[in-house]
């Protein structure tokens, strides 16, 4: 066991391991690229839906069921399914990661919108604000902390799951995990897993710090 961790440490800090197209630096960049793009696409789909459901109060049933459906959907199965349907392309990776991220963003956006005090909305309307003004100038700013939480949750889950890109022969840090499993090279497998875990934790901490800094003046 001690030997294993010593080798793992050596693997993680070795200079040649970090450079080149198979190097950690390149795989890390790929991993972040998949994760950020997938989360952005998911946000572009999920934010309008969550805002609309929250603003109109209609379709809440849909939002809640969507989230439990999303939780139940096995990501590995989805990746393989899209892979078999579309062949060698980036589709399987992005479809699976976006499907993973959308429910978290929709439900948190919706939760943020419903948490806005109805009296505040009434007051805004009473002052003569139009529907879109109430939405963008009152509800959205008040719901923002929870919306940010949803985006953060989604990004963390996506970073953790982007490992599967390597399963359908793409890059990212999952490369080490799957190549290592195939080559029975435990050090490489553990190295990949540790790197994914570390960037997930670091991103989570960074985003929650950013969130706290942005909303310092709010009780939420």
């Amino acid at each position, binding site marked *: 066991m001690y030997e294993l961790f010593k080798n793992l440490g050596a693997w993680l800090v070795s200079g040649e391991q970090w450079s080149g197209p198979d190097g950690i630096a390149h795989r890390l960049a790929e991993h972040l690229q998949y994760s950020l793009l997938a989360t952005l696409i998911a946000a572009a789909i999920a934010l309008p839906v969550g805002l609309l459901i929250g603003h109109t109060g209609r379709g809440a049933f849909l939002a809640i069921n969507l989230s439990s*459906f999303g939780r*139940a959907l*096995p990501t*590995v*199965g989805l990746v393989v399914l899209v892979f*078999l349907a579309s062949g060698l392309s980036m589709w399987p990776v992005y479809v699976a990661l976006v499907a993973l991220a959308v429910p978290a963003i929709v439900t948190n956006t919706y939760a943020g919108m419903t948490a806005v005090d109805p009296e505040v909305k009434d007051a805004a309307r009473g002052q003569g604000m139009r529907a879109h003004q109430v939405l963008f100038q009152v509800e959205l700013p008040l719901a923002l902390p929870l919306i940010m939480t949803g985006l953060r949750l989604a990004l963390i889950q996506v970073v953790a799951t982007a490992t599967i890109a390597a399963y359908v022969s793409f890059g990212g840090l999952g490369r080490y995990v*799957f190549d290592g499993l195939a080559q029975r090279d435990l050090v490489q497998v*553990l190295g990949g897993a*540790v790197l994914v875990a570390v960037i997930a934790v670091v991103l*989570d901490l960074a985003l929650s710090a950013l969130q706290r800094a942005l909303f310092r003046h709010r009780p939420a």
Partner: protein
Amino acid sequence: MTIEWSWISGHAGDLAALTVSHLQAALSAVFFGLLISLPLAVVAHRIRPLRGFLLGLSNVFFTIPSIAIFVLLLPVSGLTRTTTVIGLTVYTLVVLLRNTVEGLDSVPTRTKEAATAMGTRPLRVLLTVELPLALPVIMAGVRIATVMSISLVSVATYIGDGGLGQLFTDGFQRNFPTPVLVGVALTLLLALVADALLVAVQHVLTPWTRQKRGA
């Protein structure tokens, strides 16, 4: 993408066995998750300084990717069912611990004081007053943890287990969509049925929440 129905009928026995194995892994994880988080939640609820530490720790576990948890356990428990169950249990802890603590928090202080004033001992207050009243919130956590575990079991296919997840590897390696579709459908079905059953269990266990709604 076409489904070969004959493959399904020809493998009914295998599919049933994989489904049972899948469910067994997921339910064991929720069982052990509850076994660990119930006492921890009581501690976190009573001792304030420990609360942030325990909840924070479970949050960190959650940010570790599931495949990484399984892989990190390989030196300890190898390519076994034990690895699958430990990995999944770690994942259930976040939801179960948080919800149980929140459930215990939601019990009104007056109710606890009333029970104590009537001479009920602390352990009995916990078991017969606090836990039952916290049950709706705890059960919400159990539902999320169960559905999540059922979906996550398939990740263990990378370490040679994974219940229905084995259908994904099988279909992927043979470029054959039918097992993959069947695996996804059965996983969703298991999750839906398990969730519905838990709703029914909660309904039976918490009759007082229904009376309130009727009034």
